């Protein structure tokens, strides 16, 4: 029917609808314009990656350099190092995060005393709400060489003879970041698994008990398979964030002694862009990261759809 309506009538109809919906329009149009300004307009800035951008010049007078900055990036050992660091820390954090959250959720689920369970849960969420500044501050206090709790403990147990320089030894950095991440986010990451576990039909456990299953067998054959879809969907989603190893943690924990292993792509962008004012190079690095990210997210969504899950977008 609608196809046969001639354009002028359609426009009239549109104006009429706009008239009756004018309050909705007043409420939404400014907000959408705002979103466009802050989320979409800056995409124009990606042109900087293909220019030799000078802030003082107008757009017409910028010098276009094609892929020069990308060629530079992929021959720059420092940049390649940051890509490696980002991917490695991301993999370590994701792996540690998944294993610890699932294990912790399973153990919490076995607690019979409800108020004790709730108390442990409350304690476990707490670090999630503290800022990275506070968390990294606590971590550096705990790992300090002077009177740090970890060194004190290890010395007391006579496992080491002198304090270990946890924060200035490159070999330990990824581990320290992984540990910090788990400490802060473990409880929070557990919530979604606990929600999945609470949705399991209790008659399954009863049936298993009649069949003579022990606690371990129930965990292995009922709980884990029941939360498998949740695990898979979260794993797929985390693939889309492989280049988002985090920025704050590394920025706050890094120092001159560990920069070869601590610096991520985001730190590279910050250093070259805002501290050395090489805007074009920094934009190119950021663009590389964003394009990889967006492609991975779409790929992950595609996978999720194939796996029969439609919860992503």
């Amino acid at each position, binding site marked *: 029917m609608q196809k046969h309506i001639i354009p002028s009538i359609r426009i009239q109809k549109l104006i009429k*609808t706009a008239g009756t919906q004018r309050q909705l329009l007043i409420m939404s149009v400014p907000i959408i314009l705002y979103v466009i300004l802050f989320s979409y307009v800056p995409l124009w800035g990606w042109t900087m990656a293909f220019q030799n951008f000078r802030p003082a010049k107008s757009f017409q007078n910028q010098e276009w350099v094609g892929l020069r900055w990308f060629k530079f990036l992929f021959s720059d050992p420092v940049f390649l190092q940051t890509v490696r660091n980002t991917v490695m820390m991301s993999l370590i954090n994701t792996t540690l995060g998944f294993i610890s959250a699932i294990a912790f959720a399973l153990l919490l689920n076995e607690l019979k005393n409800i108020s004790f369970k709730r108390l442990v849960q409350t304690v476990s969420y707490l670090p999630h709400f503290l800022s990275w500044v*506070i968390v990294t501050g606590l971590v550096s206090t705990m790992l300090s060489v002077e009177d740090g709790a970890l060194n004190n403990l290890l010395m007391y147990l006579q496992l080491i003879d002198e304090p270990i320089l946890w924060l200035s030894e490159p070999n330990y950095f990824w581990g320290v970041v992984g540990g910090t991440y788990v400490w802060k986010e473990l409880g929070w990451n557990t919530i979604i698994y606990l929600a999945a576990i609470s949705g399991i039909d209790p008659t399954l456990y009863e049936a298993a008990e009649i069949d003579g299953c022990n606690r371990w067998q129930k965990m292995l054959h009922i709980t884990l398979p029941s939360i498998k879809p949740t695990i898979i969907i979260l794993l797929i989603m985390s693939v889309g964030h492989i280049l988002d190893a985090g920025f704050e943690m590394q920025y706050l924990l890094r120092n001159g002694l560990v920069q070869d292993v601590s610096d991520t792509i985001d730190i590279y962008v910050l250093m070259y862009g805002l501290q050395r004012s090489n805007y074009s190079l920094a934009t190119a690095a950021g663009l590389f990261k964003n394009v990889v990210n967006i492609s991975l997210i779409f790929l992950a969504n595609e996978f999720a759809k194939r796996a029969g899950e439609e919860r992503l977008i």
Partner: protein
Amino acid sequence: MIALKRHYEERIFTSLNTAFMIAFSVLMLYPFWNTVAVSFNEAVDTVRGGVTLYPRRFTLQNYKMVFSTGTIFHAFFVSVARTSINMFVNVFLTAMIAYVLSRPNFMFRKPFTMILVISMYINAGLIPTYFLIKNLGLLNSFWVYVIPGMVNAFNFLVIRTYLKTIPESVIESVRMDGGGDLKIFFSMIIPLSMPVLATVGLFVAVGSWNSWFDTLIYASSKVNLHTLQYKLMEYLQSSQSQARSSGEVGAMALAKTSSLVTPVSIRAAITVIASAPILFIYPFMQRYFVVGVNIGGVKE
């Protein structure tokens, strides 16, 4: 016999699990607990080492010192201001757009929803965003804390999901009485969706209170816009070895003015001050955030 064996196995497992949970809770709480103890301990005494669970020589000197300089007091005020304004503006505008886009026959429902949802996935990056902020004249202005975070696409989905639970007949009853969408939104939607708005508001507030990176890139040269988290970041960085150049502005400078305090004690006191509001609202959040997570989990 088998039943008895199983009974013992159960008991061993339960004790081990409980012991593990207690050890875990200690691991979660100790770092912060220790910092509180240090912050109330005499600085000179702390240097001797060994302060663990409680202050050995109780004093309020560290806190007095921190507040006597005025900069921390001012930073606290900036943090409170940005957090509260951010929270109200963000919740109000996000709720408003969520209401509009929950109207089934709104003419631009699909395109507007797309614009919001896609904005979650694209990110122009640090440098283009920096130039946008610069061109808008927001550099070194208080509004840089508010304006870039006025609407949140994820929270939009959370609120819209909640609004779908409000029956259409309730909304229609206001319309029958001659009320327009603005009236429906203010007199009906806001009161009815208070639980979800509180949840979203708490999350926005925590995020705003905890952020320091916007200060670093947009307002670091303007000292009176420094937030508490940013100040703490400066102090932490300056007492680490690599930041010698900026060391004078940080804890060292503060510590130098008095022989009674040290960077370690100052840091501990500021850490406690910067996390106090979070700890204070934490019991209230507990009630709400699991609800928020579950609503968000339904459709991300």
